[in-house]
Structure formats: structure tokens, C-alpha cells
């Protein structure tokens, strides 16, 4: 592909994190990937960690005992938060991908309104829902 020459405007790995002058949705997209990456890595670790149930009660309780430290409680909440964000933002992405919640087509009359602006209320609604779920689960982790 590269064929030894420099590709114009090619960001490579930098493109994963650089959102440039794009709007808020671009940052949500970055967060969607970051949380997704975190969750799949966590799943593989979790698969190994939970396999200790085969080694009997003593080993299992020993492994679970490791996770009683406060640092793991915080990490568990981070996984929960990543799931809540990824699930609800992902739900928004699926709904928009399938063409819902985009508003009706209309004439381009000045002042122009972009499709992104018309999607904003839905994005904010999902945002509020994410915050509610984060707070409720934080409450449950703390109690």
C-alpha cells in the first residue's frame, strides 16, 4: 500500500486519538473505541480469572481475596462505567446508523441546520441517561 512513498494526510496511529476540529460526537467516538478496547482486554483477563472456580473453594476464595483491596474496587467500577458508556452510546450509534432519530429531510433554508445539529438533542438525552446510570451504579458500589 505505502509503496515506499509518503501518504498525504495519513495520520496512522495518531488518527486514533486526534479529533482535530470535529465536534463533540468525534470525542464520543474516540471514547467508544477506548472503552471497547478496554472491555475486550478485560474479557480475556476475566475469562482466565474466573476459570479458577474449577480448582475448588480454597483457590477461588484466595483469588477473590486478592480483589478485596480498594484499588480493585475502583477498577471494577471503571469496568462498569466503561460498559455503561459503551452500551448506551453504542445504542445511540445503532439507532442513528439505521436512520432513526435523524429528523425529517427539509429544505436548506438559511440559517442552515446540519444533520449533526439535529441529532444533538438525542445525543444529550443519551448523555443524561449515561450520567444517571453512572451515578446509580456508583451508589451501589459505595453502599
Amino acid at each position: 500500500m505505502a509503496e515506499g512513498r509518503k501518504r498525504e494526510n495519513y495520520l496512522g496511529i495518531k488518527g486514533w486519538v486526534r479529533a482535530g476540529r470535529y465536534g463533540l460526537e468525534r470525542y464520543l467516538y474516540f471514547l467508544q473505541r477506548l472503552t471497547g478496547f478496554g472491555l475486550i482486554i478485560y474479557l480475556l483477563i476475566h475469562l482466565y480469572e474466573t476459570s479458577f472456580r474449577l480448582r475448588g473453594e480454597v483457590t477461588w476464595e484466595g483469588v477473590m481475596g486478592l480483589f478485596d483491596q480498594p484499588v480493585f474496587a475502583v477498577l471494577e467500577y471503571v469496568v462498569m462505567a466503561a460498559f455503561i458508556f459503551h452500551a448506551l452510546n453504542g445504542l445511540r450509534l445503532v439507532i442513528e446508523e439505521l436512520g432513526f432519530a435523524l429528523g425529517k429531510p427539509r429544505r436548506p433554508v438559511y440559517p442552515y441546520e446540519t444533520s449533526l445539529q439535529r441529532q444533538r438533542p438525542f445525543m444529550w438525552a443519551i448523555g443524561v441517561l449515561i450520567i444517571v446510570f453512572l451515578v446509580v451504579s456508583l451508589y451501589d458500589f459505595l453502599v
Partner: protein
Amino acid sequence: MREAHFWLLQLVTGLVLIVLLGLHMIVIHLETILGFLGLGAGGAVAYASVMERAASSPWTWFYIIFLALALYHGLYGLRTIILELTLSRTASTVVTVLLVIVGIAAFSFGTYVTWQAYAG
């Protein structure tokens, strides 16, 4: 299957996972909320509780299906992120094959453990 079908499957597994992982998180972590609903189980990660779920057929099916969907969704997503670098065709194939191997290995391991816990 074409790439568009894999992408559609990504959307579908994503929607199903919201339900499955949501249930998993509620059962394992949200004891207080379960308590409010009068379902107060508590101590979902205690050995007895874990083995009780492991010995039940519905939970065994739940975990195996859940694992398959989660691995597909997660590894396909990871592949998308990596292929965004617009690698050469050979490199893309290598990435795809490696991720398929990781997926099959992880699924086999998880299913083996689940089955052992169920049967043993």
C-alpha cells in the same frame, strides 16, 4: 459473507450484549438495587453462589452464548480499529487470522471451563 454482513452482525450482537451484559452486571454487582426490588441475593461471587450458577443448565447456556457474542463483538471491533491504519492486504489478512485464532482459543477455553464446572 461480505464485510457488510459482518458489520450488521456487529450491530446485532451489540444490541443483544446490552441485555446480556446488563443482566450479568446486575446479578454480580448491583446487590443493593436487587435488594430494593426484593430479590436480595448478595455475595454473588461467593464460591457456593458461583457453583450454584455453574451447575444450572440455563446459566451454562447463558454463559456460553454470552461468551460467543462478546468475543465476536469485541474482536471484530478490535479488528476495525487496527484495519483503520489501512495496512497492506497481506497484513490485514494476518490481523484477521490472528484475531480469529484468539477468538476460537478463548471460546474453547471458556466453554471447556463452563462445561467442566457444569458436569464436574
